[in-house]
């Protein structure tokens, strides 16, 4: 008994406090009673009227997306006003008739309209307007507006559309916008992790800059409150219970690129208007200045992003683009990785000179073929080049010389230098889908294939064929290392973010990843003197008598470059170069050419990947030359010698020379 007694006593001090609980409950009951009395009985009738006659709806005011501007502030990606026709399923009380009339005006089969409205009603809910046609003509707008009053649910709205004035030019770079679908919502949430809530039906960047800079470009939609009648038609507000003020939309920020629109247009033009035996090129072009700022960016074949952004693309066009074997959606500047072929030789040369395998004056015999490990390794020129030093080896692009370098250095030694100049790694340009390429090592091969490195692979990798893969942008940056005497830059594409009245919000400066002539974070240093030797060799490519690109010159400006051919199909040795033009188009080798100019004080680096052009010095050289000349015509016209005819090369002479 005593035990229970203490426990009971224990509780005694708590029990009286329950009266506060009872008082609180009573108080809350009274408060809610009064509030409901006020809402439902005193104001009830007004709310009742409001809910019946004036249905309040939220309507979004689209925020204009930021523009994309070129380095001089000229528009590369724009917004335009257009008209669209929509039907809101909730209010479309006689849909069959509406579809008939609307279909008549817009030349769309009524069944298709009905089917779309029905399917969207299920997918997106009945209050979401269904887009029937965007980009209406004036005539269509006029005719639709006349019948609108008789067709509940039908609306003709102004809308902001994305407009890409350059069309297919730079399409992969700028990207395009599309409507976010319900399915993609979770992806956007994950991707942006910001407070920007993307809603279904929003325009979102779906590729290129539009995608990677979407959070900057996208503004914040505004909101207005409208009262609609039971048929979904907007009605003027006579009396409102609450004064609802609209929230104005906040426009997105503009991107100021380093791209030069003139050069961009020229580059595209040159790629498409070559009247030689190859004709319009497919592939890629990139031009950067010596600070790593991108000036022009072309990938071909291309497509018209306006058709995506304005929703006018037909199913046939879409399908054709999807199935195109030459991949129009691929941004070949950063998403295509190819065997660099002979364009890798400057990297071999850094290793060879720096590791002391050769000196600038060492002469090495460079015949037309070389026996190694039980097979022949060929040079492009079966006659060979005699004894050459490293400058001359670059000039004539001697394979045998670099086979010997490959053997002497070993793959891991070259790989150190390749990594130091950025190969096998992402360049860090803020664009979706960049691929890192690959520079192999013995360890890599063991890990990937569980096989030891073969001595013969030293030879193929030394001429950029084995496992080595690069992107055009990486190669341009590597060539810029030679041009600037050691500076590897991080590519810069967006140099500023601009507010909607031209105020600069943020600027981005060129960044040096490392200077390989000075102690740096990689474990190699390449001396300035050695880089100058390589530069001289590359100058000979363009200017020497035996240079593989010496047929294309610019009077007054000395260029330095290197040609290369990427064999992507393995043929037997004798077939490699002889029959390229006899093969079907898609089996032809890719030509690569990169060059910078002027040799003494380089200003610009241009690289071209000319797919299926057989030879780097056929496919790439004329275009690179023309783009470099266009650059100097714009920026340093007095450096060019006027009135000098540009020598036209005879194609026959070139063919056996790489």
């Amino acid at each position, binding site marked *: 008994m005593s035990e229970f007694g203490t426990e009971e006593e224990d509780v005694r001090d708590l029990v009286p406090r329950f009266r506060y609980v009872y008082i609180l409950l009573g108080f809350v009951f009274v408060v809610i009673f009064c509030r409901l009395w006020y809402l439902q009985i005193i104001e009830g009738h007004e*709310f009742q009227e409001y809910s019946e006659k004036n249905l309040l709806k939220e309507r979004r005011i689209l925020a204009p997306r930021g523009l994309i501007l070129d380095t001089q502030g000229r528009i590369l990606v724009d917004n335009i006003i257009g008209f669209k026709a929509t039907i809101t399923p909730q209010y479309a009380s006689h849909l069959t008739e509406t579809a008939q009339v609307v279909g008549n005006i817009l030349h769309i089969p009524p069944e298709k309209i009905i089917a779309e409205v029905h399917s969207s009603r299920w997918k997106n809910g009945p209050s979401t307007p269904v887009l029937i046609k965007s980009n209406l003509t004036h005539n269509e707008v006029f005719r639709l507006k006349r019948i609108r009053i008789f067709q509940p649910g039908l609306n003709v709205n102004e809308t902001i559309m994305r407009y890409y004035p350059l069309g297919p030019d730079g399409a992969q770079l700028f990207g395009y916008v599309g409507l976010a679908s319900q399915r993609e919502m979770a992806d956007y949430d994950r991707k942006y992790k910001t407070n920007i809530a993307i809603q279904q039906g929003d325009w979102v960047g779906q590729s290129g800059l539009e995608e990677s800079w979407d959070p900057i470009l996208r503004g914040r939609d505004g909101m207005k409150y409208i009262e609609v009648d039971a048929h979904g038609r907007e009605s003027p507000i006579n009396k409102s219970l609450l004064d609802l003020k609209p929230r104005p939309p906040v426009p997105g920020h503009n991107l100021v690129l380093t791209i030069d629109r003139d050069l961009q247009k020229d580059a595209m033009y040159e790629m498409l208007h070559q009247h030689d035996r190859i004709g319009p090129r497919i592939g890629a072009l990139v031009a950067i200045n010596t600070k790593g700022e991108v000036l022009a960016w072309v990938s071909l074949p291309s497509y018209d992003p306006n058709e995506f952004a304005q929703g006018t693309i037909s199913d046939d066009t879409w399908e054709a683009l999807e199935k195109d074997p030459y991949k129009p959606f691929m941004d070949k500047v950063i998403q295509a990785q190819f065997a660099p072929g002979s364009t890798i030789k400057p990297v071999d040369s850094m290793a060879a000179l720096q590791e002391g395998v050769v000196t600038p004056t060492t002469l090495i015999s460079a015949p037309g073929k070389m026996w190694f490990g039980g097979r022949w390794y060929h040079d492009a020129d079966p006659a060979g080049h005699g004894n050459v030093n490293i400058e001359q080896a670059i000039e004539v692009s001697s394979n045998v010389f670099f086979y010997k370098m490959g053997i002497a250095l070993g793959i891991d030694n070259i790989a150190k230098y390749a990594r130091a100049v950025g190969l096998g790694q992402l360049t860090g340009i803020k664009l979706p889908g960049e691929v890192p390429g690959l520079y192999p090592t013995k360890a890599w091969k063991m890990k990937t294939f569980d096989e030891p490195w073969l001595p013969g692979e030293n030879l193929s990798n030394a001429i950029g064929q084995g496992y080595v893969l690069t992107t055009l942008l990486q190669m341009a940056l590597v060539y810029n290392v030679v041009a600037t005497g050691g500076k590897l830059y991080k590519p810069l594409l967006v140099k500023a973010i601009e507010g909607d009245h031209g105020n600069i919000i943020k600027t981005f400066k060129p960044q040096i990843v490392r200077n390989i002539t000075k102690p740096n974070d990689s474990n190699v240093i390449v001396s300035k003197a050695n880089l100058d030797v390589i530069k001289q060799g590359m100058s000979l490519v363009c200017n020497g008598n035996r240079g593989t690109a010496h047929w294309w010159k610019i009077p007054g400006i000395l260029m330095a470059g290197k040609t290369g051919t990427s064999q992507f199909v393995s043929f037997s040795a004798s077939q490699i170069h002889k029959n390229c033009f006899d093969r079907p188009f898609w089996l032809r080798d890719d030509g690569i050419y990169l060059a910078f100019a002027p040799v003494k004080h380089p200003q610009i680096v241009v690289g071209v990947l000319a797919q299926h052009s057989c030879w780097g010095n056929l496919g790439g050289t004329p275009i690179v030359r023309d783009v470099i000349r266009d650059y100097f015509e714009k920026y340093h016209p007095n450096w060019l010698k006027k009135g000098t005819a540009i020598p036209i090369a005879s194609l026959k002479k070139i063919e056996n020379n790489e």
Partner: protein
Amino acid sequence: MATDLQVEERTFFRRLDWNLLAVIFCINVIGLITLYSATHGASAAFSQTRLFWLQTVYLVMGWIVLFGVTLVDYQFFNRAAYILYAINLIALALVLVIGRSELGARRWLELGLFRYQPSETMKLVLVFILAKILSKQNKPEGMGFLDLIIPTLITIVPTALTVKQPDLGTGLMLFAVFVSMVLFVRVRTSVLISVLIVGMVTVPLVWTFGLKPYQKARIATFISPDKHPHGAGYNSLQSLIAVGSGEIIGKGFRKGTQSQLDFLPERHTDFIFSVLSEEHGFIGGMTTVGLFIFLLFMCAKIAAQAHDRFGVLVGVGAVSILFWHVIVNICMVIGLLPVVGVPLPLISYGGSMMITAMASLGIISSLAYRKFLF
């Protein structure tokens, strides 16, 4: 002697508090009727009929939990409080790491057959552990600063983890349970006053640095709905129109224009009381509120009859869980509080809330079941 004999003769069914169970059942019926309307929209496109059937399943599970908890001696929760707390805290931390994300929030752990929401069970576990600790407090002048340190820490950690998910509503509930229980045990007046002063200083800081924009928007909307700079006033306003337009007897079952025509957001979860008020008017709304207040009154009464301090405090905790959910939800719907994501127990759609609510009531029922044990 006579009383002892009586005790032994009582069977399971006779020892249950049938009045309590009857009131719960009435609220369940109202809940199902309202949910049926909210999930069977006027047009097929608004319907989520599946949810209604799921809810009936949750309801059956809820009753099983209620009876199960009734049979457990609540002293078990006293003994197991620390270990339950530790497990639950780990689960709560895990949610942030590997939790399932939905609508930008991580709240659930995927456990094969079902999803487990640790913040939901934390409400009960917090009641257990606080009851255990506070039951040792019996200073007549109330708790001082030092006495408050441990209970505060025990509450702050899970609350912070929950708010981080982010789930402001549940975090708020956890904290409210703590405040209720501590105040019930009594806190010194001097401590209360200092806490109020500190609160006035820290609230602006939390406002500036601690809240997500959407959370700020909700509170801002509440404070000045006319300006509602972020447009979040829409939900609030539509809810007010729904409630108000119900007038005295309502528009009738499944005849609410606001609810049926998709004007009301979240109408089967957080805003279900507006559906009820629109369709059944002042009479329906007040009946439900009355039943809830009556239920809470009964629960408090049962808690007051418990034999030991732990029993009383667990009862108070269970009552406070229900009380705060009901009050915050209804006040939000009728525009007396900002829009926080708190469901209405026993009425809103949702398995987690149903189980928590029925388990809380199970604790009360357990107290009632054992009040004859002497």
